[in-house]
């Protein structure tokens, strides 16, 4: 279903065909849940926050302008909902020294994440991803698993596209440091 079809669905939902909202729930519940569970870490909370995100989206459906895809709009709501939950819990993430990150040569990053055969490396990478902060996790989850463009990521995270590009680049450097220096 393309963006225009989704807009038509939204118009019909707003006109009273509430049951059509199930299409959005069926299509996006797993993606939203997998993003939230990476942020809040517990499944019970993630499920509750997924439900909250969909309810917020439903209640604010009339504010959806159609200038981005519905999924981008929904991811933005889910991200903000999850962020609010993490703020209440004051989660802590390891910080990486700036100088350490600056010292990483660009060429090393370009080739480091390319080969995918090494199981130990993959395990280390999974651990390193777990140590990223909320914004960084959201960035890589949406960029690599949901195939969101830089422009869409900018909308979800309320950043400029240039800022998203820089942050994506820095996340890769941070992952490299976390994996090689064993932080």
């Amino acid at each position, binding site marked *: 279903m393309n963006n225009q079809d989704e807009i038509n669905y939204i118009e019909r939902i707003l006109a009273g065909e509430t049951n059509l*909202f199930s299409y959005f729930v069926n299509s996006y519940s797993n993606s939203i*849940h997998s993003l939230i569970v990476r942020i809040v870490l517990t499944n019970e909370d993630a499920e509750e926050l*997924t*439900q909250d995100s969909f309810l917020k989206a439903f209640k604010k459906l009339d504010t959806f302008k159609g200038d981005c895809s519905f999924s981008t709009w929904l991811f933005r709501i889910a991200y903000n909902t999850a962020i609010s939950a993490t703020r209440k819990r004051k989660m802590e993430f390891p910080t990486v020294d700036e100088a350490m990150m600056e010292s990483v040569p660009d060429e090393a990053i370009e080739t480091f994440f390319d080969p*995918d055969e090494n199981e130990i490396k993959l395990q280390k*990478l*999974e651990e390193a991803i777990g140590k990223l902060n909320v914004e960084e996790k959201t960035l890589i989850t949406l*960029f690599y698993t949901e195939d969101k463009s830089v422009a869409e990521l900018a909308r979800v995270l309320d950043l400029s596209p240039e800022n998203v590009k820089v942050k994506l680049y820095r996340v890769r450097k941070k992952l490299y440091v976390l994996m090689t220096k064993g932080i």
Partner: protein
Amino acid sequence: MNNDKAIIKALQSTEIPRLSADFNLRMMAEVYRAVERKKKRAYVLGLCLISGVSLALIGLAVYVFYTYFSMNFKFELPGLPKIQLSSATKSIYAFSTYIALLSLMLIGLDNYIRRKWLTKKMK
């Protein structure tokens, strides 16, 4: 950056707990509940608005009656008051009755046209 196969694989291989099987059903039940709540809220709000406006109109009518209308009550038979109106009050009564009938007619016309338009839209 799209060639970062290792990152993609690591993200995909991370075990993500699944949503409970009945999540979508529960979600839609919540949505229907939200719709019901919204309808109820709108109904109560409408009721409060109508009550408020009605009370205000009654208050205004009482105020206008006491301020601008003078009436003499003559009791000829016990329990049956006979109202005597002065000539100035009579003209105000006539004008008020004319305005009230005109308003009723316009409201009726509005209701009739609105219903017709809705029926046409439904078809």
